[in-house]
């Protein structure tokens, strides 16, 4: 009797969640699919987004991601290496970890304010792809570090001992042995970071800005796909159909990114349980 009730309640809850998910996704696919074709993906934005395509937007988004990763990846890698070797009893490792946990919770709009003040004003980069990418780099750093650290910690301790017993220098152990072994974890981190960065809107509103032209350099303002959706939905009368199309493009891209990360990390987990 109780079992039936529990099962019923849980199926109902799962049904509601799946229903909401299907509604959202179905709505966007149905309304967006018809408008997407090659031209849409390549053409410049026209008539405030009501016509034309999203070519420059895709370019800007990619550039923002490239800037973001090229700063956050080295920094994240270095920090993750320190954390993976840090003794949890020592203050330094604990401090870094705690600080990153809190940073992970800082709202993205606050990163936007921070990026505007630091990169836009203090460093004089103004509204630019560089500003936006650097702001996102700060934002994704905690996620990146967490998964890279997990990857590094998954490397069996035997391997470190083997290297030490050979009198190998630390840097070579790291570069030639540990990092290749941790590569899947690093990859998961990168993919998750890309997912988070590509989904971001609020942090970009006052850093990379709204300009929908094809950017000439990293110092140009560039509109990301997420900002494009926002602008079409809220600021452009009649922009709705094209907002659907852009949302679909973004969702599909992110689903690919996230599923890649998930299957990578599951493969990583299973290879840890039964080593080859």
């Amino acid at each position: 009797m109780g079992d039936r009730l529990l099962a019923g309640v849980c199926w109902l809850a799962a049904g509601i969640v799946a229903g909401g998910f299907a509604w959202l996704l179905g709505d966007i696919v149905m309304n967006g699919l018809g408008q997407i074709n090659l031209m849409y993906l390549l053409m410049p934005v026209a008539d405030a987004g009501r016509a034309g395509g999203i070519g420059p937007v895709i370019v800007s988004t990619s550039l923002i991601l490239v800037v973001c990763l090229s700063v956050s990846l080295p920094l994240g890698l270095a920090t993750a290496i320190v954390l993976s070797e840090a003794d949890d009893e020592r203050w330094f490792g604990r401090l870094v970890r705690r600080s990153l946990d809190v940073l992970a919770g800082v709202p993205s709009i606050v990163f936007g304010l921070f990026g505007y003040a630091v990169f836009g004003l203090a460093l004089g980069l103004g509204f630019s792809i560089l500003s936006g990418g650097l702001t996102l780099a700060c934002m994704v750093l905690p996620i990146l570090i967490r998964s890279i650290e997990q990857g590094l910690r998954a490397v069996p301790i035997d391997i470190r001992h083997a290297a030490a017993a050979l009198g190998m220098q630390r840097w070579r152990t790291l570069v030639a042995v540990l990092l290749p072994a941790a590569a899947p974890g690093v990859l998961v981190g990168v993919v998750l970071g890309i997912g988070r960065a590509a989904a971001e809107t609020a942090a970009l509103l006052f850093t990379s800005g709204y300009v929908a032209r094809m950017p000439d350099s990293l110092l140009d303002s560039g509109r990301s796909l997420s900002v494009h959706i926002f602008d079409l939905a809220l600021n452009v009368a009649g922009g709705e159909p094209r907002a659907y199309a852009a949302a679909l493009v973004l969702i599909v891209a992110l689903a690919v990114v996230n599923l890649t990360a998930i299957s990578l990390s599951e493969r990583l987990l299973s290879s840890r349980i039964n080593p080859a």
Partner: protein
Amino acid sequence: MPASASRLDPDRLLTGGLRLCAAFSAALLILVVIFLLLQAGPVLDAIGPWRLFADDGWFPADTAAAGQFSIVALLAGSGAVAFGATVLAAPLAIASAVFCRFVAPPRIGQLFRRMLEVLAGVPSVVFGFWGLVVLVPLINRWQPPGASVLAGALVLGLMILPTIALLADSALRSVPRATLSAAAALGLSRWRTALQVALPAARGGVVTGIILGVARAIGETMAVLMVCGNVVQVPASVFEPVRTLTANIALEMAYAYGDHRSALFLTGLVLTLLVIALVLVAELGRGANARRTAHG
């Protein structure tokens, strides 16, 4: 006797460089707070923290003397939407986690978890857009104007649900199998095992998930900006429009100058402190839980 360390020992350089990077990553949080403080400084000097709550309302102006800077209505907006979202999402999320672990056939449970993971990655601007074109008109037909606390709570609820459900799910997964088989050996039925053994054992993880969900709801910008109507007021019912702290920043930064802009940074600081407090509470809960399971 071989003694260590010449001056340019690559290992020393490496260790130093790595430490430096780690220190920078750790300092980022402090940098964020410092820059917010620097920007908020002028208005904070002029009005002090007290007027944030004592002023007559949010009527910012370019000079502190001419403006009113009460964030009470904005806090009420953020609070109402986040509270509504949590009330809607938490029970569904916990039931979903129990569904994954105890009720669904393994294949379906796995599929459902995948769905939650994809849902967790859907950008907030897409949630907001969907809320704007689908939910708001629906609510509008029932109780105008439609853009309201309710719309915000529904959209945010759907957004934070995967966060809570996935954390609860992994907390349930880490309940020791021995505990569950002990319950089964006592002849406890499945629902008793789930509700009276597994969930209490996973309580720490579930609570952490809920707190992080609340933190995410309070910090969320785009979705609430698009569906809540953005009227600065303390809502009298769930059908009234509100403006949250986050939406306010996004709306006004575009044209704010002088003390007005400074005030927006101040609200950003308030927001950050609020979320930091929540994250720390969640961390404490997680730490206490880890200790409990270590001893138990």
